[in-house]
């Protein structure tokens, strides 16, 4: 690597080397160290099989779901700067976001469509994993985590649906929570626990908001991390188990 003097002095400096514990990744050792010494990269193995990289094996759906989740966190935090979860203020702040906040409508659009896309992509990811038999041992437990992640994703989407506090959200949540009320024995209690009362109200709004911005995203981050980590621990994508036939 032909490096100019200033760059060389920078990469040799004490400060730089405290950040990066490896040299320029143009050789096997430094390429390995790049992956193992970086917290964000270390979820990847140092080497991957060519089979698992074929786009028409996984279609990148799992990574796409994670990317969409990232978009949702980013746009969600932006929206939180303006949104107020109270029955009196929720709808007016929605209007404010759309009409007077710079790029407010656009940020909300991104959040909305990313949420729908994430539900769709997660379902497609599950179908991919099923049809490629990637739930088979030793990956059984990671499949179970995946099922929980699907339910959490649906929960996150559903709780977010109420927040605009418009007719669409109000009645969709009324319909949805009514279903919970039909559960045998625990139904009415479950419904009341969700709603914080007998109908969709201020209590419901603050409960859904807290679930939507704290409990569900935190659970998702935790389980997505476990999910990724286990993909590595269980030997990468199940494509690696397939016999060589290229």
């Amino acid at each position, binding site marked *: 690597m032909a490096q100019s003097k200033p760059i060389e002095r920078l990469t040799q400096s004490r400060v730089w080397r405290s950040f990066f514990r490896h040299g320029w*990744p143009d050789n096997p050792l430094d390429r390995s160290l790049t*992956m193992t010494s970086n917290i964000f*990269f270390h979820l*990847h193995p*140092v*080497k*991957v*099989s*060519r*089979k698992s*990289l074929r786009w028409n*094996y996984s279609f*990148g759906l799992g990574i*796409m779901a994670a*990317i969409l989740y990232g978009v949702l966190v980013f746009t969600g935090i932006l929206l939180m700067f303006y949104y107020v979860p109270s029955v009196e203020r929720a709808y007016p702040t929605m209007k404010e976001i759309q009409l007077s906040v710079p790029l407010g*409508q*656009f940020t909300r*659009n*991104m*959040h909305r*469509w990313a949420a*729908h*896309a994430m*539900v769709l992509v997660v379902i497609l990811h599950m*179908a991919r994993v099923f*049809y*490629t*038999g990637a*739930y*088979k*041992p030793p*990956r*059984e437990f990671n*499949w*179970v985590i995946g*099922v929980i992640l699907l339910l959490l994703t*649906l929960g996150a*989407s*559903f709780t977010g649906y109420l927040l*605009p*506090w*418009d*007719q*669409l*959200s*109000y*009645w*969709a949540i009324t*319909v*949805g929570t009514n*279903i*919970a009320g*039909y*559960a045998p024995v625990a*139904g009415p209690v479950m419904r009341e626990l969700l709603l914080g009362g007998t*109908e*969709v109200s201020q209590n419901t709004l603050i409960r859904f908001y807290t679930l939507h911005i704290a409990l569900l995203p935190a659970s998702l981050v935790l389980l997505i991390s476990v999910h990724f980590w286990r993909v590595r621990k269980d030997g990468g994508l199940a494509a690696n*188990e*397939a016999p*060589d036939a290229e």
Partner: protein
Amino acid sequence: MTNELSANEEIFPKGTNKSYAIVELVRGDGPMVGKGPEKTVFSFPVVLLWEVLLLLGVTLALFLFSLIKQAPLDAIANPQVTTDPAKAPWYFVGLQELLEHMHPTLAGIIIPGILVLFLVSLPYLDHSRTHAGVWFSTRRGKRITVWTALYTAIAMIAFIALDNAFSMRESLRGVAPPWVAQWLLPALILAVIVLIPVVVLRRKGASTREVMIALFTVMLASAVVLTISGFLFRGPGFEMFPPWNMPDGYNPWNDF
């Protein structure tokens, strides 16, 4: 003799400054024995480039879609004025469609509960390691998927259409106790729809994996049919309307 000597000299050349040697020959179960050449690449930078590419692609698609399609915002919530129809978000509209055909406890709690239970227990029911990592496992698996999907689509469309035309709930009113029309018959019909492929496959000596493929496909195809029916074909009062005949102002894409 001389031949052997030269071969020996070739393997262990004299006067070289390299230091290597065959330590041992392994016939047996060593970690790399029988695995053939390693077909791997360094994750850096290939995997990361793929991920950056996906990141750019996904955000660009969202970006463009968000420029042309606005997120809906209806009038402010009013508990006194019911919207008509009050539809659940699209991923629950399949359940809402199912609710039209049976008792809410069956459609809203028991069936989803069974589905979640099925998904969670699936890897423990089908625990063979064969054919992992291959789409549809085998050619036969692919055929099973296609035929089951087709069969399920037809059966579920027939179930929805027939129950809509000759409602079990209405036609059995007064003839049989309500639990027959609300619980017994719908549960029985769905059970038959689910079990037919299982029985057929079992008779043909199908493996557990193949039965699972059929069951999963029944689930997925039913969900798709129910969702499309609830999303596109339900108008005011959650009544069935063909999309081309939907009354004005009930365009299902509006709330999307």
